[in-house]
């Protein structure tokens, strides 16, 4: 007995795009809300630590990055936390910067963002500058340490 072969209906290969705009808007709102201006964009390898506390949003930043060339000096940059960071060449400039910030706000927090390969003497010089400027709280920026590390 022969079967009558009817035409098979193929489902249309369409992707439902009506909700795409909603998704896009949601993403847009997310990015606008979480948008933060990074005051110092120096790329570096931060040290890993188990203990990490959240740094205050408007804290001043002092970044210490190793040079690309070994013979070149280190790059030290400072930022008030509200403006983009600027390079400084001497420790005295760090003292002046920190003293100005502390005079404006005695409880101003400072973040030290230093590469893990930086010789400690440079970090020591910055720490000393901050102590001279009567800074009260310092945060040493780090990445989360994991079991693999």
């Amino acid at each position, binding site marked *: 007995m022969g079967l009558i072969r009817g035409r098979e209906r193929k489902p249309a290969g369409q992707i439902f795009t009506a909700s*795409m*705009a909603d998704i*896009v*808007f949601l*993403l*847009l709102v997310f*990015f*606008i809300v*979480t*948008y*933060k*201006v*990074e005051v110092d*964009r120096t790329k570096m390898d*931060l*040290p890993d*630590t*188990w*203990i*990490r*506390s*959240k*740094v205050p949003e408007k804290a001043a930043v002092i970044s*210490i990055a190793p040079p690309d060339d070994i013979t070149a000096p280190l790059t030290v940059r400072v930022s008030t936390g509200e403006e983009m960071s600027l390079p400084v060449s001497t420790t005295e400039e760090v003292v002046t910067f920190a003293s100005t910030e502390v005079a404006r706000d005695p409880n101003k927090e400072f*973040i030290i*963002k*230093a*590469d*893990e*390969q*930086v*010789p*400690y*003497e*440079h*970090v*020591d*010089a910055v*720490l*000393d500058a*901050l*102590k*001279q400027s*009567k*800074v*009260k*709280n*310092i*945060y*040493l*920026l*780090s*990445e*989360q*340490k994991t079991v693999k590390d």
Partner: protein
Amino acid sequence: MRIKKKEVQSEIFTGSMADISFLLIIFFMITSAFSADRGLDFALPEDTDTPEIKQEDSIDVHVLRGGAIEIDGAGTPLEGLLPYILDKLKQNPEKPVILRTDPDATYGDMIRTFDTLRTAKIEWSDADGRPLHMDVHGKPLIEIQTISIPTRREIENLWSMLGIQ
């Protein structure tokens, strides 16, 4: 003669809205920085000219070049740091720890040691946060009360005060 009025359509063209949104998303995705916003915090002492802590009253942790550490002058692996300090704090829970770092050691070496000192609170507590150890008076030992990080200038000042060249 009657003039036909042209009807103006009161519609806002929304066809390109999705494109604009996409462009904005791309902008925010590229420029938003998922930056590190956490770190080790510590408070600096108010008086910076003369360190109050005397070296003989404290536990001296010295980070050497290459990352090795010496505790009270004796070379110790990093794993031995907290057990040594625990023993000392059992005798005197207020004993401060001085963290000195060789200028030629890296910042990463110093941070590793400092982080180990800061983990004492977790190491010396059980899963519920109850202290695991007691001092000689039976008081619970939870954490190192003072970790001092003197700068080279402060150390040199102290040495000159003590008459050490």
